[in-house]
């Protein structure tokens, strides 16, 4: 990659990203308002009095009685000033709610991502190196199993095995609420709680990476430059690392960019199954309560994350593969 073109590229991409984010914000807003029910009806329903006057009052208080385009205008203005609004239900600013939950989600998705990429590439490389042996068959079979099994089922089975039967690992939550832990002890506790949800979230992608890495490594191993390396006397280990693996990782990076976005979506399910206190749970609860402000806040936040991740992938790709030019 030509380093001198980087600032211009970043500027153009950020400009585009800003436009995309505004478009997403509009879509989110319209989608949510297209769904039946609103926060007033839910609150009225829960308080047991569906008095039209009370609902009118609530709607007025939340600003829901104004025309839709006016509401949209207010929402966009707020978003552009990075004000995510106020949750009337939880009586807290949305930004505070999200920032409170975001680290948990980042920890979970980050752990799942690292597990999937490192485990998948390692297994795939091993399978490719020993192609045709029992190790290859075992890895391929394992990968196929993970690939074909639904996420929630894997989660439940892991809980059954490791929590219920073996009692090795906790099955829900992020830390043990009964203990007042600090420092390393707290980290250890969180790490233990992290294992099962991260595995559940990461296993599918681990399988994808293993298969992808194996296939591309075998393909690259047949290419001419590998023979060139052999002809100049490069030892096999170095051929594998410096020549084959590095080229085989290119498609993995492409896929990792896609996965990073999907992980955040996948985390809603896993956070619900494992009662993990992240923004996925937050969004799910907000949806049931028709808590528009929180829901929109979560949507907005995840959209920004996906866009940032995509940009990071493109940059990484350009760094790894010199043939890619940063344009657009």
């Amino acid at each position, binding site marked *: 990659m030509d380093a001198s073109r980087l600032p211009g590229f970043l500027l153009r991409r950020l400009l585009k990203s800003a436009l995309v984010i505004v478009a997403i914000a509009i879509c989110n807003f319209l989608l949510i308002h297209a769904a039946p029910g609103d926060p007033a009806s839910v609150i009225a329903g829960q308080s047991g009095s569906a008095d039209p006057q009370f609902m009118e009052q609530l709607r007025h208080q939340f600003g829901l009685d104004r025309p839709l385009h006016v509401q949209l205008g207010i929402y966009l203005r707020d978003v552009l000033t990075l004000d995510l609004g106020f949750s009337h239900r939880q009586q807290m600013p949305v930004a505070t709610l999200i920032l409170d939950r975001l680290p948990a989600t980042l920890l979970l998705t980050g752990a799942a991502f690292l597990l999937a990429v490192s485990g998948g590439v390692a297994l795939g490389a091993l399978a490719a190196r020993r192609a045709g042996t029992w190790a290859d068959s075992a890895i391929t079979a394992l990968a196929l199993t993970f690939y074909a099994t639904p996420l929630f089922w894997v989660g439940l089975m892991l809980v059954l095995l490791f929590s219920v039967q073996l009692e090795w690992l906790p099955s829900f939550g992020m830390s043990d609420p009964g203990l007042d832990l600090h420092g390393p002890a707290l980290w250890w506790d969180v790490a233990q709680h992290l294992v099962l949800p991260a595995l559940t979230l990461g296993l599918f992608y681990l399988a994808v990476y293993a298969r992808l890495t194996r296939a591309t490594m075998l393909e690259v191993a047949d290419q001419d430059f590998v023979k060139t390396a052999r002809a*100049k006397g490069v030892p096999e280990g170095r051929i594998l690392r410096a020549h084959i693996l590095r080229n085989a990782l290119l498609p993995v990076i492409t896929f990792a960019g896609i996965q990073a976005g999907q992980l955040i979506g996948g985390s809603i399910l896993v956070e619900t199954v494992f009662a993990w206190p992240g923004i996925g749970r937050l969004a799910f609860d907000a949806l049931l309560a028709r808590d528009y402000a929180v829901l929109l806040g979560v949507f907005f936040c995840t959209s920004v994350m996906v866009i940032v991740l995509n940009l990071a992938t493109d940059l990484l790709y350009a760094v790894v593969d*010199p043939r890619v030019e940063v344009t657009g």
Partner: protein
Amino acid sequence: MSLLEVSGLTVALPPGGDRPNAVEGIDLTLDAGEILCVVGESGSGKSMTANATMRLLAPGLAVRSGSIRFDGRDLLRLPEEEMRRLRGARLAMIFQEPMTALNPLMRVGDQIAEALRVHGAGNDAARRVPELLEAVNLPDPRAIARSHPFRLSGGQRQRVMIAMALALEPALLIADEPTTALDVTTQKQILTLIREIQQRRGTGVMFITHDFGVVAEIADRVAVMQRGRIVEQGPAAQVLNRPEHPYTRALIAAVPQGHAAARPARSVSTETILQLSGVRKTYHRAGGWFGKGVAVPAVADADLVLHRGETLGVVGESGSGKSTLARCVIRLVTPEQGEILFGGTDLRPLSRNAWMPYRRQIQMVFQDPFASLNPRRTVGEAIAEGPITHGVPRDTALAKARELLSLVQLPPEAMNRYPHEFSGGQRQRIGIARALAMEPQLLIADEPVSALDVSVQAQVLALLTDLRERLGLTMLFITHDLRVAAEICDRVAVMQRGRIVEQGPTEQVFRSPRHPYTKALLDSVPGRGWVPPVAHGIDLAKSE
């Protein structure tokens, strides 16, 4: 003692191959400071011999017997680790495809340095790498060392490969078709470079090639291979000028001679079939939302005229725009400017529908006989498909297809077989039959013989010449090979960077070229100083 002594080498093919052994009973010797050309057609086992010497045979191929003695030691009996230490240090190899033979993600300097480092000479890398790049005549060695392979042209990459192979001053260099993928002018430079370095350092070179022109250019000694065996071996002058084995004679007789004058001029009508004037095609690389695109002129202001019954050759190197020009005529690409008059009608502005009648009058034969036939249709269907689409009854079209097969000298049984059952030359015959099925006024042949072995190439050229006489075909013949153009074309147009720089009767252009580029091209034809002996009474088809 010779530098390299191969004796009785036999390499087995996996069971189910077309013959039990890839190579059988190979005996070769190579002295220091000598260039031995191993020449043969595809599948003759010449690359296999080279790979066996490097012990880089593909898995599944095993040496059955024989020995390869290098510096007195039998390479076939060395432990793997010792062999690895010899590779790159004492024995080096360069390959045919410079585009894929370098790691695309590594800077070329690092790749050369790697060759030094794995043999314990990494400390010198910073000094040696630019020196090596300079030794292979690359400009600005330091900048080249920092480049990734995709920045370099094919010829530059092949120079990098040579620099890498020579990094540790090996005693033996094996070059496996190192110039086959290169343009003729680049080929000449690379051949000169190999010769020069080899003489300076006294390296022994085993040079694998299929091209007798290249052999004539570079060889001290020649070994001719056929179906896994060496059929003739000897000093270059002897093998080239007084070939003894019938196969060698047949091969040499098949080499297109590049002497236009040897052929009597044909009478051609003055009726114009095709006239191009000011044709221009520019390729645009799209920019992004905010970026600017790049415009590459592929064909610029091309003018040419083609008379009925005439064969016009369009010659040029890769990227000269000759294929784009052909594609403009048949509307596979749409030129943005100029007139393409076919029988008086300008084809360029016609709509898709208005074009339909011309589709059958202009037909094309493509370079790659493997890729241009649908693998899931029988040959009969492939040939009859065009006429049927244009409304000819199915039975009539199939009957016509059978006739055409005999016209291109294929048996009628070929009708119901699939393309993979045929050899490259046979497939190209099928491609010709498919084009002729439409009874075209104009046949465009885009490098029709470039993917074929020399003996097959001669047969297909003979077929085209014969058909041209019998059917009065008008041909636009695209080729990069001047020897082929000289063989078949009445007139030639030479293209360089999208422009036609010279055109005229073949004999005149070849004998007294006016444009410097044409001169350079003709000067680069390998083996131009060698006049192949006239072969008496040798029938190619029989000796095959």
